[in-house]
C-alpha cells in the first residue's frame, strides 16, 4: 500500500468491459456500489423480516430511519412531497451506507468520487425540474420570481435566483464529495505521520503519539461527517423538492 494519500481513491478494473469503445469495466468502485446496495438493502430487509409488533433493536433502527426521513420530507416539502419518499429514502440510505462503508480500512469510498455525487445531485435536480414542469407547466418558473420584490430590482433578483438554482447541483455534489475526500485524505495523512515518525527511532515513536491521537479523534469526527453529509444531502433534497411541489411559495 502506498503512502500517497490519494492512492485510496484510485479506480482499478476488476472485470474489464468495453462496449462500443467506451470503458464500462466493473471496477472497485462498482464493487463497492454493489456492496453498498447489498449492505443497505440487506440490513433493511433482514431486520424487518419478522414484522414484529414490538420491534427488536435492529428493526427499530430500520423503523427510525424510515420515520426520520418521512418526517424530514413532510416538514420540508409538505404532504404533497410524500410521493418522493422512496427517492429521498433511497438517497439517504445509499449515501449513508456508502459513507460508512468507506470508513473501513482498505475499503473504497464511492461518495469520494465527484462523478458519483454529481450524478446523484443531477438526479435530484432533474427530478425537481421534470416534476416542476410536469405539475405546474410554466408556472414552475414562478420559482425564480419571489413575491414582494420591487419592479426595479426584479431582473437582478431573478438573475440571482437562476444562478443559485443552477449552482444547486454543483454545491450539492461538491459538498458531499469534498467532505468525504478531505476527511479521508486527512485521516491518511495523519496516519502516515504515525508510521513515518515511528521509523525515526525512540524519539519519533514518542512524537508519533500526537498524530495517533489525532487519527483516532478524526476517525470519530469522520463517522459524524458520514452521517451528517447523508443528512444534509437528504434535507437539501427535501428543500429542492419543495420548490417543485410548491413553486413561488418562497
Amino acid at each position, binding site marked *: 500500500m502506498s503512502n500517497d494519500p490519494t492512492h485510496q481513491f484510485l479506480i*482499478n478494473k476488476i472485470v474489464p468491459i468495453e462496449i462500443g469503445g467506451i470503458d464500462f469495466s466493473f*471496477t472497485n468502485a*462498482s464493487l463497492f456500489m454493489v456492496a453498498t446496495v447489498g449492505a443497505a438493502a440487506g440490513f433493511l430487509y433482514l431486520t424487518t423480516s419478522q414484522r414484529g*409488533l414490538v420491534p427488536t433493536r435492529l428493526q427499530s433502527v430500520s423503523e427510525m430511519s424510515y420515520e426520520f426521513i418521512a418526517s424530514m420530507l413532510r416538514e420540508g416539502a409538505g404532504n404533497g412531497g410524500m410521493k418522493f419518499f422512496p427517492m429521498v429514502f*433511497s438517497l439517504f440510505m445509499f449515501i449513508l451506507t456508502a459513507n460508512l462503508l468507506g470508513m473501513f480500512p482498505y475499503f473504497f469510498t464511492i461518495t469520494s468520487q465527484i462523478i458519483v455525487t454529481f450524478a*446523484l445531485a443531477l438526479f435530484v435536480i432533474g427530478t425537481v425540474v421534470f416534476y416542476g414542469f410536469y405539475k405546474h407547466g410554466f408556472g414552475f418558473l414562478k420559482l425564480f420570481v419571489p413575491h414582494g420584490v420591487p419592479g426595479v430590482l426584479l431582473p437582478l433578483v431573478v438573475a440571482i435566483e437562476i444562478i443559485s438554482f443552477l449552482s444547486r447541483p454543483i454545491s450539492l455534489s461538491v459538498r458531499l464529495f469534498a467532505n468525504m475526500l478531505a476527511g479521508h485524505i486527512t485521516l491518511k495523512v495523519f496516519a502516515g505521520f504515525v508510521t513515518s515518525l515511528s521509523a525515526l527511532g525512540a524519539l519519533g515513536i514518542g512524537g508519533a503519539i500526537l498524530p495517533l491521537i489525532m487519527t483516532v479523534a478524526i476517525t470519530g469526527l469522520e463517522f459524524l461527517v458520514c452521517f451528517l453529509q447523508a443528512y444534509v444531502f437528504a434535507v437539501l433534497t427535501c428543500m429542492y423538492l419543495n420548490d417543485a411541489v410548491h413553486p413561488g411559495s418562497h
Partner: protein
Amino acid sequence: MFVTAAYAQQSTTTEGAEAHDAAAAGEVHTETGVAHEGEAGSGVFPPFDSTHFASQLLWLAITFGLFYLLMSKVIIPRIGGILETRHDRIAQDLDEASRLKGEADAAIASYEQELAAAKAKGHQIADGAREAAKSKAVADRNAVEADLSKKITAAEDRIADIKTKALADVGAIAEETATAVVKQLIGGTVTKAEIVAAVKASGN
C-alpha cells in the same frame, strides 16, 4: 487493491515510458509524482480522472436503480405496513381499554345504585319495626295503666267501703263503750238516744 494482470501490465509500460522520459529530462518528478502517475496511468487527481466516468455512471445507475426499486417495492411498503399495523393495534387497544373502562364505570354505578336501594330498604324496615315496637309498647302500657287504674279504683272503693263501715262501727262501739262507762261511773242508765247524741257531738 485489486489490480488485474492487464492493468498491471499497462501501468508498467506507462511507468517504463515515464521513467525513460524522466531520465531524459533529468529527474524532474518528485517521488509521489512518479508513484502517482505510475499507478493511475494518468497525471490527474484520481477523483477527477475522467477515463472511469462512463463506467462509474453506468454502475451507479445499475446499482442505485436496483436499490431504488428494492426500496420502493419491498422495503418501504414493508416498514410502512409494520408502522401502520402497530398504529392500528394501539388505536384498537385504546378503544378496547376505553370500552372496558366504560363497562367498569357502569358496573360501579349500578352497584352504587343497588347499594343505595338496599340502604333505603334497610332504613324502611328498621323504621317500620321501630314504629311497630313503639306502638305496641304504647298499647301495652295503656292496657297496663288501664288495668292498674281499674284495680286502684276498685281498691279505693273497697277502702272507702271499709272506712265507712269502720266509721259506722266506731259509732256503735263508742255508744256501747259510753253506755258501759256511764253505767260504771254513775250507775244509772242513760238513754240510748242521749248517748248517740253525745257521741255524735264529741266524735267525728
